[in-house]
């Protein structure tokens, strides 16, 4: 589903070279719930930008659903984002002038879905997160938790194959944060692939798989020992078995 191969993201700040991502190889499979954890400046945000097709790597390959997206142009990336990715942001990132329904409709608008279907799909998504009754309200009339639900609904509306959640609980109190995470787990249980980006171990623990990033490198991966890239990739069948086994174990750990 997601496959990063030797991905580098290097910024040239005058004389200095900043390696925001320094050779990351990573594979995330369908129906996984993975958390990417790291301190600020660790490169996790850059990593998310690349996975989220908001940015392209300086070098290396990124396959999303077996499609190489690492050299795509702006508009091609926009289309990929629109069709395969759903974003949940820390600041909800709802458009204040639009009401809840219109916000949720947005990805479908850009997909070119007809108005009737669009409204139906948006309402369905809002029903899923349990705030269909607020659909004519403006985001500013909702609480933080409700706004985050709207943004989840928006992420779900386009029926994307991957949901990317960037610090989804960062702006919420503990209780609502927990609800949001439980909801994400539920979505994962229903078959959605979810990637959480966080600095908070408490949040990351809700995921079946934890990938720790530091200084642009993966230093720990509970679903997989630190990948060794190309050489290892040759033995695909064996690796697949290992991977499938681990999430289950992690899932049980969560339950305890």
């Amino acid at each position: 589903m997601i496959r990063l191969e030797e991905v580098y993201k290097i910024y040239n700040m005058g004389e200095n070279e900043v390696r925001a991502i320094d050779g990351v190889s990573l594979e995330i499979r369908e129906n996984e719930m993975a958390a990417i954890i790291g301190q600020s400046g660790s490169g996790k945000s850059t990593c998310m930008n690349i996975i989220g097709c908001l940015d392209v790597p300086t070098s290396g390959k990124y396959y999303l659903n077996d499609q190489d997206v690492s050299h795509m142009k702006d508009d091609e990336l926009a289309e990929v984002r629109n069709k395969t990715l759903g974003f949940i942001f820390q600041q909800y990132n709802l458009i204040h002038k639009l009401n809840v329904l219109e916000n949720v409709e947005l990805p479908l608008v850009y997909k070119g879905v007809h108005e009737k279907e669009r409204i139906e799909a948006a309402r369905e998504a809002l029903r899923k997160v349990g705030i269909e009754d607020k659909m004519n309200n403006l985001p500013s009339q909702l609480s933080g938790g409700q706004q985050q639900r709207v943004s989840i609904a928006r992420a779900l509306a386009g029926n994307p194959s991957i949901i990317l959640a960037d610090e989804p609980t960062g702006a919420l109190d503990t209780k609502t944060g927990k609800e949001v995470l439980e909801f994400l787990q539920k979505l994962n249980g229903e078959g959605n692939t979810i990637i959480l980006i966080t600095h908070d171990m408490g949040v990351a623990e809700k995921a079946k798989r934890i990938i720790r990033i530091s200084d642009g490198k993966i230093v720990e991966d509970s679903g997989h020992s630190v990948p060794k890239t190309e050489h290892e990739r040759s033995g695909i069948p064996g690796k697949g078995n290992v991977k499938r086994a681990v999430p289950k174990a992690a899932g049980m750990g969560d339950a305890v």
Partner: protein
Amino acid sequence: MNFKQSFRLAIKSLKTSKMRSFLTMLGIIIGVASVIILVSLMNGLSQDMTSSFESMGTNTLTVNVMGRGTNRTLSVEEVETLVEENPEYLDQYSPRVTASVTAKYDVNSVSTTVIGVNEFYDDMQSVAVTEGRFIQYIDTLRRLKVCVIGAYEAQELFEGADPIGETVKLNGSSYKVVGLLEETADSEEGSDDDVIYVPYTAATRLADNARISSYYLTAVDTDEIETSKTVIENMMYSVFEDENAYRVTSMSEMIEAVNEMTSSMALVLVGIAGISLVVGGIGIMNIMLVSVTERTREIGIRKSLGAKRKDIMRQFIIEAATTSSAGGIIGIIFGIGAAYAAGVIMDMTVVPSWNAVAIAFSVSVGIGIVFGYFPANKAAKMNPIDALRYD
């Protein structure tokens, strides 16, 4: 695709910040309104002038003799012969001798214009007599001192009393009033009602000039007026042998000349008003640039959700065009209203041109698109990551 939504959004943001929208649109409003006002007034003016020329008859040809150092004049007999010899082109003729006189009756007096004509003139120029009669052949033949007075003179000199049969003094000599003209312009001073007709033979004395230097002729067919004109010109040339000694003009030429003059005047004025449209466009561009910066985050969100460059572009251009066309509509309404108000105040005819309205509206939409392009392009090119991080 999302045209409807962009449009709705644009209307929404116009409504939410009314003051700002109004100020943004002000340049367009002023520009469109002044174009509409100017075009309406100029149209009215040219319509007035055209109709006053047309009332003199579009088949009329005027001959003016300037002389140019020769003593040769054009006699009435020569003109008469010309008309008689060319019945397929020329219909009637009348000499036209004008003089400024003071007309007196009892204690009342007015300064006015006397026009010396023959018996055909009323027919040629559609001059109608309500009472009495017009100048007749016998009057000109015998140099009778009779006159036909306009409604203004009847009102000023006779104050409502019946003027027929009375005697007025024109520059001291007595003239018998034989006819009263129909009122055509509210009996105003200087209008078509302010006139006295006398036999041309008598008018040459009033004018202190025995020469008749101006003739009116009518063409048989308005469509062949150019041929009729050539016939006159040929005769004139054979008499004077100098093209500069006379001038033959047709009324339709004069109407054309007037129309040309008013429309080129209108063009200059509209051009000046058009400058304010451009200024208005720059105002819109300015506000759109501010708006793009203010909404950087929104642009980032939209892009992250899959908006392509053209989607963002379209959104901002539609917004700019909506703002400017709203300004255009307000300007059109205001302009038409102001044109009528100005028409009443300045006593002018106002003819709003629907062409001008349509053009003003499309120009204002066009200005929105043109001046919205640059800000929209700026928005479309934003990098989604930076835009999302923008506070």
